[in-house]
């Protein structure tokens, strides 16, 4: 029987193994940063490959933990993102004194996310969520000499403590009214009574905090700006992706009796999120802040897709997260490299970037086009599918406003592209040599952002996983 649980939890086991390997390496003789990073990149790659084989369906520990091919695929998207981030942070980590610690923090957080996605019980879910957040707060403080970094970390830990408290409050109320926390039992016991509704709202708020839905988003910009770029990209892609996966499954299974309520709620929240995200993104000068607000708007679009429960919605959300991994990480990767080499973070610094760094400019442009949803990049398809998933009788207002906002978002993404290609600058950023590791990451990201949309088997594959379920 113990083999069962080894196979079902193999992705978690792999992450735990990596953490232990790191600890032992750290305890042993002094090693260079390169050796740590190379080992980790190879291990992460192996981990990614491992994730695609021997995937079984199963339930462990009285439904505390469950897995399926869909869940394994979701974890693999996170594995992929983790690998890309690791490759991209090469330039930044090269000179850092605490490489193993960085990886341990990231992997612990990843482990927490895996448990969260796999949870079949709200308690387990809460545990996973906390386990993923606390290491991130430490990681956000990783630029030990920078005040902004510590400030961001403090804000993250305080606000997430607050949101966890609310979440826990909600969970306990739910327990109080139903007497169970198991996902498979809850739907039968949930009805429209006000106490449960309030519990539901508290739980939603906990989710909304993690994926930065307005008005629970206020921490986002400060933390994104303060944290090192690698952590920021982890927060904006991996953390968000994981919570979205969990959100979809909790919403569609546990809270399916409240479908009418959360449809209206998502309607309001998604509009607030898209509009606020866009309006603030227009004004930002700091590149990381800009990406923070633009990613808030992106989440708003995802909520539009989620708002109608169906197989198509789930598929579109997972598909969009996959695309988002490629496009957002490509953008963050360029910013990370530029920040690591030159220390510049403002959009205006990127004026004339094309003159000195044509390759990086194209990577950034493709990433931004994909985020903006311009064909033939994958983002176009992702957004379109989200809109189709969200479209239905009577919600043309939502879809129309979302569509208008796609155009608005195009405006501010184009503003950056314009700065890169067209604006004259007497002192452009110096020409930056891209080391091998980030280069690999860029190739993967760009290839993903360009092809995922056109290559339909990807979507079909996700859809088949969901229908199988």
């Amino acid at each position, binding site marked *: 029987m113990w083999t069962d649980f080894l196979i079902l939890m193999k992705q978690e086991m792999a992450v735990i193994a990596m953490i232990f390997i790191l600890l032992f390496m750290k305890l042993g003789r002094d090693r260079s940063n390169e050796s740590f990073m190379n080992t980790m990149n190879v291990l992460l790659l192996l981990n990614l490959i491992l994730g695609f084989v021997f995937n079984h369906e199963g339930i462990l520990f009285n439904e505390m933990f469950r897995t399926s091919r869909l869940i394994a695929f979701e974890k693999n998207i996170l594995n992929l993102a983790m690998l890309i981030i690791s490759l991209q942070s090469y330039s930044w980590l090269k000179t850092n004194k605490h490489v193993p610690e960085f990886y341990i923090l990231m992997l612990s957080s990843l482990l927490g996310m895996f448990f969260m996605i796999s949870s079949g019980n709200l308690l387990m879910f809460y545990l996973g969520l906390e386990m993923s957040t606390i290491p991130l707060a430490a990681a956000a403080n990783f630029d030990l000499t920078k005040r902004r970094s510590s400030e961001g970390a403090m*804000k993250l830990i305080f606000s997430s403590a*607050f949101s966890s408290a609310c979440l826990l409050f909600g969970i306990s109320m739910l327990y109080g009214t139903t007497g169970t926390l198991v996902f498979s039992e809850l739907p039968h016991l949930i009805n429209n009574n006000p106490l449960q509704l309030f519990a539901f*709202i508290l739980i939603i708020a906990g989710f909304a905090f993690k994926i930065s839905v307005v008005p629970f988003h206020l921490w986002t910009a400060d933390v994104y700006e303060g944290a090192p770029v690698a952590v920021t990209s982890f927060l904006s892609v991996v953390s968000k992706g994981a919570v979205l996966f969990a959100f979809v499954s909790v919403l569609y299974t546990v809270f399916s009796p409240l479908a009418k309520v959360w449809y209206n*709620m998502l309607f309001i929240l998604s509009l607030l999120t898209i509009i606020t995200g866009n309006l603030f993104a227009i004004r930002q000068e700091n590149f990381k802040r800009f990406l923070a607000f633009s990613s808030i708007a992106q989440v708003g679009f995802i909520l539009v897709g989620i708002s109608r429960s169906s197989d198509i919605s789930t598929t579109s959300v997972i598909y969009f997260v996959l695309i988002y991994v490629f496009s957002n990480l490509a953008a963050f990767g360029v910013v990370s490299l530029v920040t690591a080499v030159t220390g510049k973070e403002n959009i205006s610094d990127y004026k004339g970037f094309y003159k000195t760094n044509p390759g990086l400019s194209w990577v950034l442009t493709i990433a931004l086009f994909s985020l903006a949803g*311009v064909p033939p990049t994958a983002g176009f398809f992702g957004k379109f599918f989200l809109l189709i998933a969200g479209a239905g009788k009577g919600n043309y207002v939502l879809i129309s406003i979302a*569509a208008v906002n796609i155009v608005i978002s195009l*405006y501010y993404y184009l503003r950056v592209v314009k700065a890169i290609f067209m604006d004259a600058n007497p002192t452009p950023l110096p020409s930056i040599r891209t080391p091998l590791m980030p280069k690999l990451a860029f190739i993967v990201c760009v290839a993903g952002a360009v092809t995922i949309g056109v290559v339909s088997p990807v979507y079909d594959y996700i859809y088949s996983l969901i229908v199988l379920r």
Partner: protein
Amino acid sequence: MKERVRLMNYQQYLLPVLLLPLACFLLLGLFGKKHLKNASGVIGTASMFAVTIISVLVAGRYFFADGKVDGVYQHLIAYKYNWLAFSPTLSIDMGAIVDPISMMMIVVVSFISLMVHIFSLGYMKGEERFTTYYAYLSLFTFSMLGLVLSSNIFQMYIFWELVGVSSFLLIGFYYNKPSAVVASKKAFMVTRFADFGFLIGILVLSFYGGTLDFNALIQRLTAPQSGEFVSITTASFLGISMLTWGLCLVFVGGAGKSAMFPLHIWLPDAMEGPTPVSALIHAATMVVAGVYLVARLFPVFAIDVPALQIVTWVGAISALVAAIIACTQTDIKRVLAYSTMSQIGYMMFALGISRYGGENGLGYTASLFHLFTHAFFKSLLFLGAGVIIHFVHSNDLKDMGGLRKLMPVTHIAFLVACLAIAGVPPFAGFFSKEEILTASFHSNKIIYAIALFTAVLTAFYMFRLYFSIFWRKEATVHGTHNADGTASMKIPLIVLMICSVGAGLVPITKMVTSDGVPLETHMDVLFSLVPIVLVLFAIFFAARMYKKENGSAGKMAVAFGSFYKAATKKFYVDEIYLFITRKVIFNLIGRPAAWIDRNIIDAFVNGVAATTARISGLIKGLQSGKVQTYALYFFSGIAGLAVLFIYLWK
């Protein structure tokens, strides 16, 4: 069995038509700059030449050999791949549709593109980004051909956006020129804004139709008994049926791309791109995509009269307004841009007044006929303008004059094109315009009056242009040989000139009709006489005013006073947009957002810096307030949702 053989053949031909330009784009885009610097133009042109030959062959086979079954042109699907099974009921196919309009369009697009490719060999010679230019041209041609061949509305939307992207790239080709950059951005934003209408329209139609496939969609939404038809016509929003909503939203997309009033503001600015590009994209091909879109969905439009009314009036107003503005512009390319808009307006309202089938479908046929002939003479006008600008180094009419002796080829070509667009027999424009006038006369007299007046204005401003460029004064530069440009610039002019004379004789009315049944048209000499006489009078009038330098043009301007001034200012449309965006949107939405941003977000960041400095101690500084503010917002969010969903919105 025979059927299958035929379809397979189409695939064999149509795939290269799409793939050659794409391959060419990838080749030039990826390797061109380093390895193919000088050969890129030739490579692009050669591939385009092959594409044109294949297109003409395919179209020829379709129209004259096997497109017709029992006297009716068929809608064939050359190939179809199930690209993505979106859900069990809704799958997206990538295919190519073979029917009269798509076949006509591939000929037009590939032919004009070939001409522009050849012309650019001379015109863009010595340009630093020569290779990039040809790569973009290939990309555009690929997207445009993909657009017209799309068998699926989503597929069309992809190519629709791609055309927009390549147009954006080409308008901003001279990216060192600030005005070009602004123009490219404006064009992209305005058309993208219109496309959101298209997108919602697609969502509405596909939601009710349950399919994205053109043929299936048309079939379901035009059969009065089908469940889809009943549901889309009975559902309504704000008292208007969903069918009308869907079609109008789709039309918004078309109007944006086709520069219809009031979404036309991007077109005149788009003239910042290289002139051959204007000829290809902003005169002959991309801008007629809107007309093509309406024509593609025409059977559905035809059963929904309100939507057609909108098409009609938007088209007619655009035709008229653009013609009036064109009379006052002094930039040669802008005159041509407005005339394009006006002519497309012509095509639009011709579609709008048409109905489905038989004699009632005359407007449809006439519209596409005009699209066909217009492509030739308008691209000729633009290429001619290109030669002139190349020689004079200015776009302004006042820098020109008396050029007829210096550039005889261009002069003749331009004259032919002007006669064609003015609708003087036997040039191409006469036949198509005649059809449109006939169709409008039989359906709506007011539209007929507008059409007639626009035709007269067209003749007037085109000849104003012609006389100002080639006559008016004696040329100041003498003895420059080669003012006509290189051979590669002359050849397209001559070929297009022949087309502008002959295109009217192509029996489009027998080939492209709303229901596929060839239409018998007959010319009524008495009916034609009125427009011809009026047009000739307008030309004569233009000659009086502009052939020699005298004050009569100025006197005219004075006589029309404020109206003339308003027209010069393009009726202040740009200003209205600026007013709305700057004053209304900025004040009502932007300012408050900025206020929140400044007083909450920015003030917070600054506040943190200031407080930290003052109290010296980060933790203290943080505790002094703002994370609590975040918590406050968080909690008010919960409270708001709770109140809303527990008490108010049950």
